[in-house]
C-alpha cells in the first residue's frame, strides 16, 4: 500500500473515532438550505401580504407589509366567487371520498393481505396498475359514463335523455370512490399485522366482518390517517375533472371557484390571493398536524401528485 493511501486511511480512521468533524461543512450546507427555503417560501409570504392589502394600495409597488392591512379582500372573495358554497361542496366531496376509501379500499387491501383467495395476487396487481392510467385517457369516457348513468338526472333505464350525474356533486365524486393506491397502502400495512388476534377472535366465533371492524381496524389508525389524508387532498386539489363534469356555480369546487376569478378579464389580485389562501388553508392545517404521515406516506407508498 502506498504511503499516501496509508495516511488517508489513518486519517479516515481517526475521523471515524472522533465521530463527525464538528461544524465542518455543516454551516455551509445550513446556509444553502436557509437560502433555498426562503426562496421557496417567499411567494407564500407575498400571497398573504397581498391578500391583506386593500385595493387602494394594490396599485404600483406592493410592499411586503401593507400600510393598512384589511380583510376586505376575503369578503370580496366570498361574495364574488361564492367561495362559501365552493368550500361546502369541496368539503362534502372530500368527506364522502375519505369515508368510501377508508371502508372499501381498506377492506379490499385487508382481504388481499389477510384472507387471500386463489389468484388474489393477479387481481391485486391488475387493480393497482390502474393507478398508472393517465387521466386524459379516462377523462372522456368517464364524462360520457357520468352522463349516461341510468335513472338519474332525467335519464331513462338505458341512460338516455337526461344529463345523468353531470353537474352534480355525485358526478364530481365518481372517479374517487376507490383510489387504487389506497388498496396498495392497506395491503402493505396488513401484511405486517399480527395474525394471532384474528385467529383468537375466530375461535370465539366472531365473523370476518366483525374481526375486520373490531380487531384490525382499530390497529390500523396510522393507515387510516394516511388513506384519509391522501384521499382528501387528492379530491380537494383536483381541477380537470370538476372542470369537465360541472357547469353551474352551485356545484363548483374550491379550485374552480379560484379559476372563476380569471374569467373576468381584469384580474383582481387581492381577492384572488385571499381565495388562494382560503383554498389552501384546510390542506395546510392537515399537513401541519400530520407532517410525519404526509412525508412517510409519500415515501412508503409513493403517492404523488
Amino acid at each position: 500500500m502506498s504511503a499516501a493511501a496509508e495516511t488517508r486511511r489513518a486519517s479516515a480512521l481517526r475521523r471515524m473515532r472522533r465521530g463527525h468533524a464538528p461544524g465542518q461543512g455543516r454551516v455551509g450546507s445550513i446556509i444553502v438550505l436557509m437560502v433555498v427555503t426562503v426562496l421557496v417560501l417567499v411567494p407564500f409570504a407575498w400571497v398573504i401580504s397581498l391578500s391583506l392589502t386593500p385595493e387602494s394600495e394594490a396599485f404600483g409597488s406592493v410592499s411586503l407589509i401593507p400600510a393598512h392591512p384589511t380583510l376586505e379582500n376575503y369578503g370580496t372573495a366570498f361574495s364574488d366567487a361564492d367561495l362559501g358554497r365552493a368550500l361546502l361542496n369541496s368539503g362534502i366531496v372530500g368527506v364522502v371520498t375519505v369515508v368510501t376509501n377508508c371502508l372499501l379500499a381498506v377492506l379490499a387491501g385487508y382481504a388481499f393481505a389477510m384472507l387471500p383467495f386463489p389468484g388474489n395476487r393477479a387481481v391485486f396487481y391488475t387493480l393497482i396498475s390502474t393507478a398508472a392510467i393517465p387521466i386524459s385517457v379516462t377523462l372522456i369516457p368517464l364524462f360520457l359514463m357520468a352522463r349516461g348513468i341510468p335513472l338519474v338526472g332525467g335519464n331513462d333505464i338505458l341512460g338516455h335523455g337526461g344529463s345523468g350525474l353531470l353537474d352534480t356533486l355525485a358526478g364530481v365524486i365518481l372517479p374517487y370512490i376507490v383510489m387504487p393506491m389506497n388498496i396498495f397502502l392497506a395491503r402493505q400495512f396488513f401484511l405486517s399485522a399480527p395474525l394471532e388476534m384474528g385467529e383468537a377472535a375466530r375461535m370465539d366465533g366472531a365473523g370476518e366482518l366483525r374481526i375486520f371492524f373490531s380487531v384490525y381496524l382499530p390497529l390500523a389508525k396510522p393507515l387510516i390517517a394516511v388513506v384519509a389524508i391522501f384521499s382528501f387532498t387528492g379530491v380537494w386539489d383536483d381541477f380537470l375533472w370538476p372542470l369537465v363534469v360541472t357547469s353551474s356555480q352551485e356545484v363548483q369546487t374550491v379550485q374552480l371557484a379560484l379559476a372563476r376569478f380569471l374569467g373576468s378579464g381584469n384580474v383582481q389580485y387581492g381577492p384572488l390571493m385571499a381565495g388562494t389562501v382560503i383554498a389552501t388553508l384546510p390542506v395546510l392545517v392537515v399537513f401541519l398536524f400530520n407532517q410525519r404521515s404526509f412525508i412517510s406516506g409519500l415515501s412508503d407508498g409513493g403517492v404523488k401528485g
Partner: protein
Amino acid sequence: MATTVILPADVDSPPAGRTSPEPGGVRKRRRWSRTALIGLLFVLPAGLYIVIFQLVPVLYGLVLSFTKYSPLSRSGPVFTGIENYTDLLSDADFGSALLVTGRYVLQVLPITVILALGLAILVNRPFKGVGLFRSALYVPHIVSLTAVSMVWLWMYSQTGLFNEVLGWFGAPAQSWLLDSDSALNAVSAMRIWKALGSNMVLLLAGLQSIPRDLYEAARVDGAGRWATFRYVTLPGLRPMLVYVIAMDIIYLAQGFAEIYVLTQGGPLGSTTTVNYLIYTEAFQYNSMGSASAMAFVLFALIIGFSLLTIRGVMGRNR
C-alpha cells in the same frame, strides 16, 4: 406500475402460512376455502368499482378513438377506423402540442431532479432543525397546482414580484407569460419550484435506505466525496431515482391546471400541451373521437418513455 420499485422486500413473500392452505384434512381445507370466499367478497366492491370506472373507460376510450363522435349529436359514435390516428399525423396543432409537451418535460425534469437530489443530500445529515427544512421545502407540493399557479400568475404579472425585483436593478418589466418565447419557460420555472419538495422527500427516503456500513467502508478505503457519491450513493439510490423520474414524466406529460390558469395554452399555442389540446378538442370543439385518439398516443408515449427511463437508469447493473 412504477411503485413496485420501492416495495419493501417482504411484499411478494407474505409470512409463511398465509397464502398456502394449512396441511391437513378435509375439514381444514374447507375452512380455508371459506375464508378465501370471504376475502373475495371483501375485495368485490372495490374491485368491481375499479373495473367499471377505471378499466372499462380505458376500453371505451379505445373504441371511441376509432370513431367520430360529438356528445351533442343524437346518433351515437360513427365508426371511422384508424382515420383519427392518420389525421393526427398531419395535424399541425397536435405536432406542436407534442413538441411543447416534450420540451416541458425535458426542461423541468433534469433541473428538478438534480436540485432535489442536492437538497436531499443536505437534509439527509442529522442536525438540529433539519425537520423544519424538510417540511418547509415540502410545502409547495401540498398546495394545489391551481392555487400555486394563481400565486405565480401574480408573480409574473405586470406589477408582480419578478418585475418588482427587476425594477430594483433598473431593468425594464417583462411580460413573462404573454411572450411566446418565454411563456413555456415561465411555466416550467413554476413546475420546478413545485416539484422540488416531493422529489426531495422521495430521494431522501432513498438515501436513508442505503446501508450505513457501505459509507463506513468507503471512508476506510479512503474514497473521496465524489467517489463515495459515484460508487455508493448513486447505485444505492438507483431504484428511487427510477421511480422519481418515471413519476415526474407521467405527471409532467399530463400538465393541465398550470396551463389553464397561467396561459390558457397561449400565446400562439406556445404552451398548448397535449393534455390541454385534448381538453379543448373534446369539450370545446366536441370532437371526442379524435381527442380520444390523441389521449392514446399520449398514453403510448408516456409508457414508452417511462420504460426507456427505467432501462436507461437501471440498465447497466442488471
